[in-house]
């Protein structure tokens, strides 16, 4: 199994504030890994470093063996991202948004059209393709963003709090969809969240708190190691707060 994402000893500061401290994470192809942490734990900073919005000055970040800093183009080719903030253009149609993204990855119009049809079918929004994004619900917009992030067939999908602000139905639909994407074994997913109920038994979790990785591994292993009943209690114990 190949390594989709390898982060080694990455630290990051904003002035005097240490947002990340010696973070190391490894994710294999086909893994669905949850990056669990409270708001302000450093999840978004870590995503900004992986996607090279910020530069990592310490340690290394590799995506399928391509260093984000040294071989950024090859590294970024393999990443699909769903940012915490909505990033679709509300005044354009779903199709126009998706074509724009395809062009940013250099896809031909014919290839893009084919992939857009495929991805939009997969998220069950074919009938909304010509609609303006503004007319879509929050859940539908998120699903479009996920479809968009997959158009260039990335090997690593990064989602930063993708279900925040959505109703329970939309949350579950999105979660189920993304988990199903990993099943084929080609796509690795890093799903950042502060919502513990999004984690299932048998999944991999990386717990981040105040910029440090406090625990990582299978849910069951972490529960056992912390001698707690479930992952919620284990998380509470590890970060010292009650959620």
């Amino acid at each position, binding site marked *: 199994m190949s390594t989709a994402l390898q982060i080694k000893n990455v630290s*990051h500061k904003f002035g005097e504030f240490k947002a990340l401290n010696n973070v190391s994470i490894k994710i294999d192809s086909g893994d669905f890994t949850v990056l669990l942490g409270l708001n302000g734990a450093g999840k978004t*900073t870590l995503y900004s470093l992986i996607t090279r919005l910020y*530069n990592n000055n310490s340690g290394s970040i590799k995506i399928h063996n391509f260093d984000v800093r040294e071989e950024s183009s090859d590294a970024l080719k393999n990443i699909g991202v769903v940012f915490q903030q909505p990033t679709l253009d509300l005044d*354009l149609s779903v199709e126009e948004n998706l074509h724009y993204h395809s062009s940013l990855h*250099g896809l031909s119009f014919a290839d893009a059209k084919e992939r857009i049809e495929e991805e939009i079918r997969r998220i069950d929004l074919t009938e909304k393709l010509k609609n303006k994004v503004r007319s879509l619900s929050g859940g539908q917009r998120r699903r479009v963003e996920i479809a968009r992030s997959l158009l260039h067939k990335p090997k690593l999908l990064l989602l930063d709090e993708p279900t925040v602000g959505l109703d329970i139905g939309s949350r579950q639909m999105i979660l189920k969809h993304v988990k199903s994407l990993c099943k084929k074994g080609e796509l690795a997913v890093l799903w950042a969240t502060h919502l513990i109920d999004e984690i299932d038994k048998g999944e991999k979790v990386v717990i981040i708190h105040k910029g440090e990785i406090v625990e990582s591994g299978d849910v069951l292993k972490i529960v056992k190691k912390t001698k707690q009943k479930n992952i919620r209690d284990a998380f509470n114990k590890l970060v010292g707060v009650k959620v």
Partner: protein
Amino acid sequence: MKPIIYLRCFKGIVLREALRFFHQKERFFSALVRPLVWLGIFAAGFRSVLGVAIIPPYETYIPYEVYIAPGLIAMIQLFNGMQSSLSMVYDREMGSMKTMLVSPIPRWFLLISKLLAGVFVSILQVYAFLIIASFWEIIPPITGYFTILPALIFTGLMLGSLGMFLSSAIKQLENFAGVMNFVIFPMFFASSALYPLWKIEETSEWLYYVCFYNPFTYAVESIRFSLYSQFNFEYTAGIVIFTVIFLILSILGYDPARGSLQKKGGS
């Protein structure tokens, strides 16, 4: 990376900007209303106050409306450049800028494409303005409609890259009002857009030098000469130099390893 990949990316960025422009009709109208208010009201009020001598490229005495038309064209591009560049960082466009910056295509290419897309939109606005301005008898020689085009590309690129540099460098400009007060108005008023430089020199020497070295003056004068199918080396060279400087600064500003994005992004 193959050239066709760059071409597709460029096409996509320009097409998106054009679609946004056509979808947001109010943006188009407000871009046109602004210079027309200056032309219809301000110029009408000032035409009797300010007399304009015969200065190149004009060969005869001209009404004040004719004099300020190039300045208003440059103003369209100035607003457009500031609006499209600054909106990249603020409000809802922030997200779309992020999606652009995580593209595997080199960042300098993405930024230049984005700038050129903005220039393309500003040129559409300028031609719409020129059509309406003909009702005020601002009618350049027919060749002027063609020879203005290269000047518009360069001036648009210069003003857009200035906006892009500001958007990467200045944290505190939280809204457009700040940009109006500290960038657009000083640049516009301290230039040859509304009055010829010799008039300013008569009043204040230091202000004359401020106006003389203001990049916006170079934009206005390049447009003025090209609208009358004349080429002025000094102004054209100035535009090219300013464009190169602002472009380099904005590309550095958006380079995560070096620029102000790095300062914002921590270390």
